[in-house]
């Protein structure tokens, strides 16, 4: 969707503003991952399915973050190879946290060029409580 919004056919886009809704983002949806494990017939299989779903979701959000970050180095993920990055198109990325953000959502916002937040937004960048190292280019 971000790629669609910033295509040349949309006109000369100068800023991409991510607003969010009642909350900005909490990263990957853990309930989606839990649901993926429902088809399992054993606890081990449940963990395996959940692990695969986690992996797929993490890569998806990483793709978004890498797109927003707009690194111009040729060493980049395959889906960005050969394409102009947002910064090369002259597009500034702005995250506006109208509501709360946590974990991957914080990292996603922080990957933008400008981050604005409502005074009553609560921001929780921690991954560790969930036993996760974390991704989304947070490092």
């Amino acid at each position: 969707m971000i790629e669609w919004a910033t295509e040349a056919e949309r006109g000369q886009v100068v800023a991409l503003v991510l607003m969010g809704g009642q909350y900005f983002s909490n990263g990957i949806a853990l309930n989606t991952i839990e649901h993926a494990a429902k088809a399992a017939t054993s606890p081990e299989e449940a963990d395996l399915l959940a692990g695969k779903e986690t992996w797929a979701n993490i890569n998806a959000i990483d793709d978004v973050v890498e797109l927003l970050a707009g690194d111009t180095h040729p060493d980049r993920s395959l889906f960005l190879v050969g394409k102009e990055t947002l910064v090369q198109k002259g597009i500034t990325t702005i995250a506006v946290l109208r509501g709360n953000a946590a974990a991957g959502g914080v990292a996603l916002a922080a990957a933008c060029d400008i981050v604005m937040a409502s005074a009553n937004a609560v921001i929780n960048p921690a991954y560790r409580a969930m036993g996760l190292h974390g991704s989304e280019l947070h490092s």
Partner: protein
Amino acid sequence: MSAEAAAKLGLVDLVLSRSGESSFPPPLGPDYDFERKVSLSISPGVEIQAAPWCLCKAPEDRGVPITIDTVTRNKLEYFSNFRGSFTRPPLSFYRNEELSQMLLDCHHPHRSQRYHNRRRAFIRKIKCGKTPSRYAMNNQSLVEDDEHRPEFDDVGEWARGLEWCQFLGEGFAKSMIWSGWTRIVLYPEETKFSMLSEGYQYEGSLNAFEMVVQRIAMSSSLNASLDYHSLVQEWVDASECSPAAREDIVGKHLPKSALTFDSWVLPQLDQDLEQFGMTPSASLSSTGSGSQMIAPLTPPSSGPAPSSQATRTKLTDDGMFPNGTESLLFPKADVAPKSSDDPSLAALGIPLVAAPIPTRSFGLPLIMSSAPSTEFIVASSPRLPFSREASPAPTDSRESLGLFILEQVARSPTVIPPPRESRRWSRLNSGHPDLLSRGSI
């Protein structure tokens, strides 16, 4: 944390009030007033706060305030020019390193159990057995929470990069050869930093200097005669060290003579050899004349089976090759190959030459053995990128060989092929007690 606290940390650039902010829950529907404030903040000509990479100004913009009009220009300046001082690797390096850890969280026997249990408890709102210690501010005598210990991330004996092979059946990204330092060090310890080792160091520390030199040495433009002194000086000048720290770094760590591959990289390589239980013969530690002999090489293959490329050479008792050339000692096979066409040689992806390449540094498997023997393996495998080169590795000196190896690594395909027997990787992690205690062969 609050938005204000996040702003102090640099996670947020601008905090805006919104209407009805004192009410809970926040009002539904669009808040036009808030959106108007956002719009005004990014109007052309209005000075704004932005991320650090947007503050790097092009020469023509020095002295000009940051506005929405200059943000992308500054960011391009950052990506293009500031990267030239070797302090900013591609973001994909960070991504691959993080994903490597996430793979462990998803599938590693220890870490995935921890993650899945916590995830299930969170989603299903299972009642917590006790208050996490980080919230128990009234009781400082509580045992430290597991999360506050470095062991929380422990994976025991695990070869770096194995998770990609074992859990996904893929090779790992080449960037992982030297991207270990990009991980955030939550609990810093004094770690000996070696040129070709993974280093987890805070940027800005004295060891960051060594980190920079490592990256310089690893770059694909490696040149034995390249004077690293000026490159490192450039980094020191651009770094955020205080003037006193800068002087300290230059005075203590920058040799008086020009910092070249010969004077810096090779001695560090010798240190790494010792760390892996290999004892270079005395003449090899001397690099003055660069005249060390290299073990005979198997030429790149145009032949059929990979295993047929393996050549086995038995050393004499004093560590010499039968033709009188000296050798770099090399750990022996975990299960010693029985003959030169032993398929395990090719399956393990043995490096092209007899020069030992520490697993941690290049992500290639070492071969170890607990059986006392003076036999060494000199082999090549067409499966490896090295052997696809038309020209054979140079044999005139150790430094040219070292250069050749590093250049091959830099030029090799993005993905290093996984070993067929991933089980062997579990023994090849650095710091394995058997390896460290083995000492000289």
